């Protein structure tokens, strides 16, 4: 059968590129392996050529998918699911990586680029490191293959036509040649998730995926070193890459936090969501790995630990991919990907590299050179090692708690080995659970970061240490006291010490850089990155511990319940929100968004508002009304607001009736609606049959019911349901004195009950209102400044390491 209006060529081209990328990567790995075995240069040439064609094929996949999205070829499932005609051009990137397939391609893309760079810079490490790269690329390409050999499913292709997907296969419409022109639902795509239509979503995923991809480089070097039995010299070329990974993955994660803060309504930049955790954990481990490599570079110890953490970071990336894409997180995460049925393949992927890498590490462990010397207790290397261990525990705690759904799958009541009696659920208060561990860990790390710069490799001179630290400690005490007074930290011991430690770490690194290092570039990498990290800690601590929900009402429903954190604002009335007086001015409709204009005054009666915010609800077909916050930024605090409910969302009849409710009643049943009893007495049916055809032409159903008010007065109502041919009609009953209206909505086919829709008269004087949440985050800017500094510092470190390597 010929289908009309389909564009098959680009899809075939895309599939060709995917196969090429898979095949070339696989054979490239084999050719590199043969080169190592035979030392025949021809194999190397072939392997290089193959990896370059693989990289070219990946660019081809990227190009084809963009072409499909930009051309709006909705016969392709991926295009139909992730874009629409009215999608702005600048969001085509977000549409590209909204789905699993697209994000796999993004990942492939970065690996391909890093692989090509490595090919030409890794020198003697090229062959073994590129085996790892090619093998990883072959696995990743297979995730987008979308082939079904021997009834197995390998990968999910973004180039599959909608009529060929498993969901649609065999449905009647797939046999209609002109389905694209016939059915309106295929003329336009379902569109991009409204939450992703945000500029952060254009830059956050590519940065994050470059971060994921970058962890492969130290991994490849470590595995190559174990493979070649050349245990020492890999650290030098791997070190700048480890810091690159720290910088770029850190940036990607922080951008995710910024997006959450700007566009989501959970009220903050970090919520310990499983998806956030699973990218944070490999980063923490990579930070540990990079510092262990530094120890080895300077003191030739901690080599096996450096191997372990370098390998672990990438394995955790694979594990996170499994967690977020296999559907195992299910109930516990709001924004994990939908299960594509690839979990088996992902598990093989994870298992393969875990076994190879850790297997090699265990087999070669004895051969890895170890230092016989005991590290001095005052040495920098000892405390850097301890810090790396603390990072590892912190990472372990996060990933363990995040893995509760995996534990259920393994040993839960319905798991593989039913050991547990109940299905474990994630901690009820996730934020409190994680913070109770992570705050102490962060405190220790930040403290070591402050002290570390003044410890010498080998042995530290105590006198010099105290001389150099004295000023920072003294100034830190004063600043801490000021902050504690200002933000009331005196009664919270743990937070108070964390406050001091963070301030101290900022100051001591500043002192190290500007006074001891005289502001020289060679001192700046670590100092700037550490100052950044300490500022992130300071900003998170103050903005979170001292956040103030100013929309909180004093009314408690019961003692055990948290106070309601939402305030009701009636139009043009002023309500006190913290130090401000807020007035809900009006609702403005902009395209498919309802903008709620709220003015904030410093004093009631002020003529001019201090500032105005416009949080909005995005009315999306896909997700319903989706709140989008609006935030007023001051240098020392943010006022973050979003609308949780509004009277504009309530359905009403247009003539003053609202508060719609559905009531189901069988004959003789009674229901309560707005202080009235509704008693269903009987159902009258009258039908008109066409004498000639014997078919029913007209059907009238009348509900005979009574409405009884609190005084016992009875009113008879007779709402009817009329069906003439295909045309449905209702005759409503309105009791004007009681202010009630009833409609015979339908008959429940299963129970044969009558479904009544009831409205009540809205108060004439009732003004439109909104229910909103407003939170003040003090000093949150420290967090953003710190983020920028940490990333800049990491890149200075990359540059420095790169330069010393070349020298």
């Amino acid at each position, binding site marked *: 059968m010929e289908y009309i209006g389909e564009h098959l060529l680009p899809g075939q081209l895309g599939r060709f590129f995917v196969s090429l990328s898979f095949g070339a990567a696989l054979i490239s790995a084999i050719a590199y392996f043969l080169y190592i075995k035979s030392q025949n240069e021809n194999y190397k040439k072939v392997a290089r050529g193959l990896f370059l064609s693989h990289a070219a094929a990946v660019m081809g996949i990227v190009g084809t998918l963009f072409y499909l999205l930009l051309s709006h070829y909705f016969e392709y499932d991926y295009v139909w699911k992730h874009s629409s005609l009215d999608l702005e051009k600048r969001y085509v990137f977000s549409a590209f990586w909204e789905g699993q397939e697209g994000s796999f391609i993004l990942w492939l893309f970065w690996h391909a680029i890093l692989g090509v760079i490595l090919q030409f810079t890794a020198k003697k490490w090229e062959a073994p490191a590129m085996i790892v790269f090619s093998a990883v690329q072959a696995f990743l390409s297979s995730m987008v293959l979308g082939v079904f050999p021997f009834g197995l499913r390998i990968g999910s292709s973004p180039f599959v036509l909608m009529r060929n997907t498993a969901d*649609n296969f065999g*449905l*009647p419409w797939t046999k209609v040649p002109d389905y694209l022109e016939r059915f309106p639902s295929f003329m336009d795509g379902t569109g991009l998730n409204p939450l992703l239509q945000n500029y952060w979503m254009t830059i956050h995923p590519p940065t994050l995926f470059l971060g994921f991809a970058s962890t492969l480089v130290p991994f490849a070097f470590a595995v190559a070193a174990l493979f070649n039995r050349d245990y020492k010299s890999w650290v030098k070329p791997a070190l700048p890459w480890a810091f690159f990974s720290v910088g770029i993955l850190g940036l990607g994660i922080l951008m995710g936090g910024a997006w959450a803060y700007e566009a989501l309504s959970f009220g903050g930049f970090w919520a310990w969501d499983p998806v956030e955790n699973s990218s944070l954990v490999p980063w923490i481990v990579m930070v540990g790995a990079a510092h262990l490599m530094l120890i080895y570079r300077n003191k030739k110890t901690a080599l096996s630990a450096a191997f372990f953490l370098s390998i672990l970071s990438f394995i955790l990336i694979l594990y996170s991919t499994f967690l977020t894409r296999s559907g195992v997180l299910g109930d516990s995460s709001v924004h994990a990907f939908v299960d594509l049925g690839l979990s088996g393949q992902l598990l093989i992927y994870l298992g393969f590299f875990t076994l190879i890498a850790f297997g090699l590490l265990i087999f070669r462990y004895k051969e890895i050179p170890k230092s016989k010397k005991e590290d001095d207790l005052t040495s920098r290397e*000892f405390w850097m090692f301890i810090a790396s261990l603390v990072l*590892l525990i912190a990472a372990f705690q996060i990933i*363990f708690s995040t893995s509760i759904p995996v534990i259920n799958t393994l040993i839960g009541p319905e798991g593989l080995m039913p050991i547990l009696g109940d299905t474990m659920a994630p901690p009820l208060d996730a934020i409190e659970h994680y913070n109770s561990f992570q705050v102490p860990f962060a405190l220790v790390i930040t403290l070591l970061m402050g002290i570390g710069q003044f410890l010498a490799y080998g042995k530290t001179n105590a006198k010099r240490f105290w001389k150099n630290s004295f000023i920072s400690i003294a100034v830190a005490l004063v600043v801490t006291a000021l902050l504690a007074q200002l933000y009331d930290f005196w009664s919270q011991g743990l937070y108070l010490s964390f406050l001091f430690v963070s301030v101290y770490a900022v100051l001591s690194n500043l002192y190290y850089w500007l006074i001891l290092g005289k502001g020289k570039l060679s001192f700046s990498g670590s100092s700037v990155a550490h100052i950044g990290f300490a500022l992130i800690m300071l900003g998170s601590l103050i903005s979170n511990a001292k956040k103030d929900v100013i929309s909180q009402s004093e009314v408690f429903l019961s003692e055990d319940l948290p106070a309601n954190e939402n305030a009701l604002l009636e139009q043009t009335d002023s309500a006190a929100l913290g130090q401000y007086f807020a007035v809900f001015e009006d609702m403005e409709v902009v395209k498919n968004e309802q903008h709620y204009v709220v003015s904030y005054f410093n004093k009631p009666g002020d003529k001019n508002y201090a500032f105005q915010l416009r949080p909005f609800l995005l009315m999306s077909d*896909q997700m*319903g009304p989706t709140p989008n916050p609006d935030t007023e930024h001051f240098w020392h605090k943010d006022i973050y607001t979003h609308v949780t409910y509004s009277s504009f969302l309530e359905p009403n009849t247009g003539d003053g009736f609202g508060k719609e409710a559905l009531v189901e009643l069988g004959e003789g049943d009674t229901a309560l609606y707005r202080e009235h009893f509704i008693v269903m007495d009987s159902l009258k049916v009258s039908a008109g049959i066409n004498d000639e055809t014997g078919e029913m032409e007209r059907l009238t159903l009348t509900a005979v019911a009574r409405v009884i008010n609190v005084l016992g007065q009875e009113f008879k109502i007779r709402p009817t349901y009329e069906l003439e041919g295909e045309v449905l009609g209702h005759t409503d009953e309105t009791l004007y004195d009681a202010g009630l209206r009833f409609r015979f909505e339908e008959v429940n086919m299963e129970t044969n009950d009558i479904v009544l829709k009831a409205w009540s008269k809205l108060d004439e004087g009732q003004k439109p209102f909104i229910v909103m949440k407003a939170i003040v985050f003090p000093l949150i800017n420290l967090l953003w400044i710190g983020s920028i500094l940490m990333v800049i510092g990491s890149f200075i470190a990359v540059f420095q390491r790169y330069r010393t390597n070349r020298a």
Partner: protein
Amino acid sequence: MKRTHIAIIVFIALAIGAIMVTINDASTYVGFNRASENPGTKYTVIGYLDKDAPMDYDARANRFNFTAIDKEGNKQKVFYNQPKPQDFERSEEITMKGFATDSAFVASEILMKCPSKYNEQNEMAGYDTY
């Protein structure tokens, strides 16, 4: 024994401690019956909205109540001291964190799963139109 070895042992001890605390902190998925047996104890219940029962959101008092049916089929009235979640009527599954009282289950947090538009469109195209 080297100091670093001692540090590693401390590390392992801490890791085991973290596992124990996590298991302690972790709640369990239960039905309304189990929650009612221990009123006041916090549980996570997964269920779905009972569309036959009335659902009421009083914006002024900011009180939302509805009836949910858990996986075992038990009905329970649920109080939620927060604005009605957007698109609540369309939810397929509701995850409620909270505790039971003698009159109702009091939820402090609600997560819902909504059907995607994709499925609806599919049905429209596949079954109804043709």
